[in-house]
């Protein structure tokens, strides 16, 4: 590449970055401003005062929401990893009657949009008494066709001889799954884990339906609450809330971007 080309490429990249990152930068900037600076429509804060960050924890029970979001995301992540890897293991290493039919069932779940089933799901959760707790927020998401396909893709690359050898040695299938397959599939599990944590941390509609107490809410619903009650008075506080909520997922994304990109493309296409 010639140097003129290189310089113009960098220029385009920088312009694109400025546009794409502007909303995030703007939110961070506003979160450090006091009321007057916000109203003046400034782009940069005059200092880095943490007042808004302190205040947001007083205005809404943000700490409770953060704990709820962390807990439910972690539970769903572990649940999805377990349930998906068990299913993927059966699809790859076992031959039995009805397997293809079950595989078709898995595919068909991808054609049913979650939003089309939310009303009966809400009724189910309500009749089970699972509203306002972690069970209702997590259990419905444990089974994931996408996750199963992603892991199945990886399990298929594991040499069949390994499985045959374990059979011959009389090691139980479950022990083989637990002590051999899971450890060598670590990277795929991490990819799926990141994806599942991200998705569940960012979930909005379901927590909105099944939680209505402050002790059960997640951060996303907390943001809505913050925005509705603070909008007229203090944007700085609202943005401090936004920054706190996006920080964990942005860090996770920055750390796992390469893995995610590889894993998602594989799960999607191969």
């Amino acid at each position: 590449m010639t140097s003129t080309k290189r310089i113009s490429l960098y220029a385009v990249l920088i312009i694109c970055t400025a546009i794409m990152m502007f909303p995030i930068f703007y939110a961070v900037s506003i979160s450090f401003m006091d009321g007057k600076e916000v109203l003046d429509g400034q782009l940069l804060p005059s200092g880095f005062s943490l007042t808004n960050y302190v205040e947001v924890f007083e205005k809404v029970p943000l700490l409770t929401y953060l704990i709820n979001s962390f807990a439910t995301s972690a539970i769903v992540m572990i649940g999805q990893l377990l349930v998906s890897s068990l299913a993927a293991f059966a699809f790859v290493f076992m031959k039995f009657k009805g397997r293809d039919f079950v595989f078709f069932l898995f595919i068909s779940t991808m054609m049913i949009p979650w939003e089309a089933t939310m009303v009966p799901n809400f009724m189910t959760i309500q009749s089970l008494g699972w509203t306002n707790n972690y069970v209702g927020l997590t259990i419905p998401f444990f089974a994931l066709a996408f996750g199963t396909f992603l892991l199945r893709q990886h399990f298929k690359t594991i040499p069949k001889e390994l499985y045959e050898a374990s059979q011959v040695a009389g090691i139980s299938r479950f022990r083989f799954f637990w002590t051999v397959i899971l450890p060598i599939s670590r990277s795929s599990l991490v990819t799926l884990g990141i994806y599942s944590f991200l998705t569940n941390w960012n979930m909005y509609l379901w927590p909105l339906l099944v939680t209505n107490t402050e002790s059960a809410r997640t951060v996303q619903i907390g943001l809505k609450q913050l925005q509705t009650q603070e909008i007229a008075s203090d944007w700085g506080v609202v943005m401090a809330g936004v920054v706190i909520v996006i920080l964990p997922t942005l860090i996770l994304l920055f750390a796992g971007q390469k893995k995610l990109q590889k894993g998602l493309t594989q799960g999607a296409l191969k």
Partner: protein
Amino acid sequence: MNAARELQPVQTEEQQPRKSRFAFLEGWLYLLPSIILFSVFVFYPMFRTIYLSFFLADQIGPFEFAGLENYHYILRSDSFQSSIKATVLFVLFTVPATIILALFLALLTSEKIMGIGIFRTFFSSTMGMSVAASSVIWMFMYNPSIGVFSKIAEWLGLPVIQWLQNPDYALLAVSLSTIWMSTGFAYLILLGGLQNIDPHLYENARVAGVSYFYQLRRITLPMLSPTLFFIITVSFINAFQTFGQIDILTKGGPVESTNVIVYSIYKDAFINNDVGSASAQAVILFFCVLVLTVLQFKLGEKKVHYR
């Protein structure tokens, strides 16, 4: 891999038949958690939704058989028609723009130059942004008195627009924020697709001395087409399922100009307590997504292997 070596020596043929008898049950045992969960939270509620769509129902349950009455009712109602219009427009505003923007960024960053990693991270960052957080930020940017769009308009001497309060602009404003939110994911998928293209193809093209755009048209886009096809379908499906940004930015208004189908279902079921009508709309949503998914499987069959 060490495990394989340790496991090699023992050879007992007799054990095999006994094992295979249990294999049937054991296989199902591994699938059981998924099957139960899918049954309870995917298949049952889907059938239940179809069932409820033929009844007059509230949140307690169905109370009177109505046949196709719900469908008749929604298809004739102005509210549902505006909802269909909003959904279709929203999809058309967001999907092509997202794909083109993501593809452009992916092409830019597929060049191997110094520091490209940081740009890749930046461009995929919106994938980590939740709908709620993004919507709150965009709501501020659209604020007619202090938001950045008004500041730019003022600065350029243009009239200040009430983006979210004006029925002519609200859907456009929501769409713009959605394009931003969905670009990160589409970008990540497309970048992955670009990096899977065999580099030898480009070396040959370089030897032949063809132009960049020729290369793009004859190598990159054809080789990327399965990925492109996948992300287009997924984006369509995602766009049909939009809810969060509508709930935070506009609540379906003004004058139902942003009342997309999922928001309309939500409103009917949980605010108007008309579960029958909500279910009928959900069935329509289901068929839209079904058609798109089947289309993906059929058209993408050759490239998308699930077996």
